[in-house]
């Protein structure tokens, strides 16, 4: 674990190519942490809310990227976990009569459990069939909750237990938790992809026949990715709806959640860890420009984003990150592994056979499939 964390920090502080000293790296991390801690007193409430939203969106996009860019699972029903996380948190908090933040871990647990069950039959579907199968599942859950009066029905439910939190701390706490979730989503995915599971996923993505022939368990690796992505979306969704203090099926299971995740990942660069970060920045910059500066309605900004996404798929299927990468001194969070040096070969032959993965998702290595 220490090893993984160390590598992650190395990646962010070392910026790939340079190898500065330990003190330098730790001081950068310390400055970042300090900046997040003091931010609520420096920036206004509106900016806090905006940044929280962006960071939660980054976490969700990163989860979708893990599925689509690495696990080969395009889920169009990821909003079901956003909604389930929110409902799980609301009902745990209301029935236990505790402040929402205390029961936060229950949301990802609920989503992980649901995802584990759903995967058992959704994994029988492939590609587009899986995409729409998950979407149908999301609709079913949404309709079931709309019909259940005990869960608030179509009108939804509020979060009265939010009063148990000191109102002065509600916004900063949401902000800090959102920041922690965003960082965890990036570095957690990084750690996962550097692990055996991640290597397996990328091997399958790049060449499933070769992967199966060296004994990679395709189903198991995808299952782990699906459950983790569900938990991540559930956690982000729970925090997101805690901030609004109200949840209803129309908002919680809105397909626009997955639309946003997809557009962010495609614009930034599918199958790279930096892509969603860049994508979130572009997504929110575009949104603020179109809606605040030009005063356009939400519909027009979705039209604009959709067109940008279409253009990205047609002309830059790897997203914008590969274009930016060169200027920033290489990958920040590379999950690519160097071929082992001779003494290590004996130990790693099996693992190395299929891990020369391309960092690209869409239109991966030419010639495969």
């Amino acid at each position, binding site marked *: 674990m220490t090893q993984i964390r160390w590598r992650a920090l190395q990646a962010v502080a070392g910026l790939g190519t340079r190898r500065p000293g330990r003190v330098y790296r730790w001081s950068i991390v310390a400055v970042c942490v300090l900046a997040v801690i003091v931010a609520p007193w420096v920036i206004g409430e509106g900016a806090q809310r905006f940044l929280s939203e962006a960071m939660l969106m980054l976490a969700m996009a990163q989860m979708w990227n893990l599925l689509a860019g690495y696990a080969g699972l395009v889920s169009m029903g990821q909003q079901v976990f956003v909604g389930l996380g929110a409902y799980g948190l609301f009902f745990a908090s209301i029935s236990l009569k505790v402040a929402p933040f205390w029961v936060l871990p229950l949301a990802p647990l609920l989503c992980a459990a649901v995802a584990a069950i759903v995967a058992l039959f959704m994994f029988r579907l492939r590609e587009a069939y899986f995409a729409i199968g998950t979407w149908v599942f999301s609709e079913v859950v949404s309709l079931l909750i709309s019909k259940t009066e005990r869960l608030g029905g179509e009108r939804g439910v509020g979060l009265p237990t939010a009063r148990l939190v000191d109102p002065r701390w509600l916004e900063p706490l949401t902000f800090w938790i959102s920041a922690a979730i965003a960082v965890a989503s990036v570095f957690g995915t990084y750690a996962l992809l550097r692990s055996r599971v991640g290597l397996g996923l990328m091997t399958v993505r790049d060449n499933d026949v070769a992967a199966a022939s060296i004994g990679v368990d395709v189903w198991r690796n995808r299952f782990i990715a699906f459950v983790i992505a569900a938990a991540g979306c559930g956690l982000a969704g729970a925090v997101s709806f805690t901030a609004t203090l109200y949840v209803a099926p129309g908002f919680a299971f809105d397909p626009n959640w997955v*639309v946003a995740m997809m557009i962010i990942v495609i614009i930034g660069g599918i199958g790279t860890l930096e892509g969603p970060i860049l994508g979130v920045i572009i997504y929110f910059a575009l949104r603020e420009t179109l809606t605040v500066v030009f005063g356009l309605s939400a*519909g027009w900004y979705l039209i604009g984003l959709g067109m940008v996404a279409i253009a990205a798929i047609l002309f830059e299927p790897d997203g914008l990150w590969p274009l930016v990468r060169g200027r920033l001194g290489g990958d920040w969070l590379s999950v690519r592994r160097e071929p082992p040096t001779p003494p290590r070969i004996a130990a790693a032959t099996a693992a190395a056979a299929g891990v020369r993965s391309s960092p690209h998702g869409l*239109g991966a290595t030419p010639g495969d499939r």
Partner: protein
Amino acid sequence: MIWVETIINGVLYGGLYGLLGVGLALAVGVMRVVNLSHGEFIVLSAFLGVSLVRVVPWLHPLALLLPVAVIAFCLGFGLQAVLINRVVTRPDPFAGILLTFGVAVVMRNLMVEIYGADPRHLQAGHLAQASAGFGGLHVGVLPLLILALSVALFTALQLVLTRTRFGRIVRATADHRDVVRLMGVNPGRVYNLVMGLSLALASVAGMLLAIRASFTPYSGVERLLVAFEVVVLGGLGTFWGAMLGGITLGVAELVGLRLDPNAGPLYAHLLFLVGVLLRPNGLFRART
């Protein structure tokens, strides 16, 4: 007796659902691309119908099926030629669904901006209320007409694909895109025509559905899911499979609504999930 009537209505409604799905089945079967903007085109054709009715109010909406279908054919041809053909040869299987999903997002929000989010309805005059009685059962004339039209279109499609030169070219392209090039066929152009045909069928279904049920710019999601469920449930190799899939879903939905009036499409979705669970292997043979 009420149950017999419900089931008959379900069958009539299901014929329409089959029509919603058959265009999608055609596109999936020939191009291996699931067009996620299929539902948006279904709704768009309904809006086109509403607009045309305003221009020529003296014409019955059913007479507008042909012009709307022609417009939809051109849109489909253009969509395929300008956008989808650029990604259809990529090795990545997701490029097509992501691209068409982007198209769906753009179209849905454009329709919201142009037409507003209020529910609309296509008026069919006296025909909508007319009903025929057979031995105590009352069945609407319009639903019967719609089913007859669906069956006619299914038959026509089947005949075109099995009996004509164009149909042979389409089937050959679906099987071996690279080999038909040797015979002087341009797969891209075949795809353009097939997508045009797919959306023309979708537009007929969209217009007919707009007469039977109200719609908003957001209905595309629901329509796409129904169309997709029809394709998966009916993936039996012929388009009659899609018809059977549609009828199954239609009956499930109406019986569900009879048992539980505010269920919406819940029972159709549940039936689909159970179908996927029980028959996963029968699902992938959706070919022409």
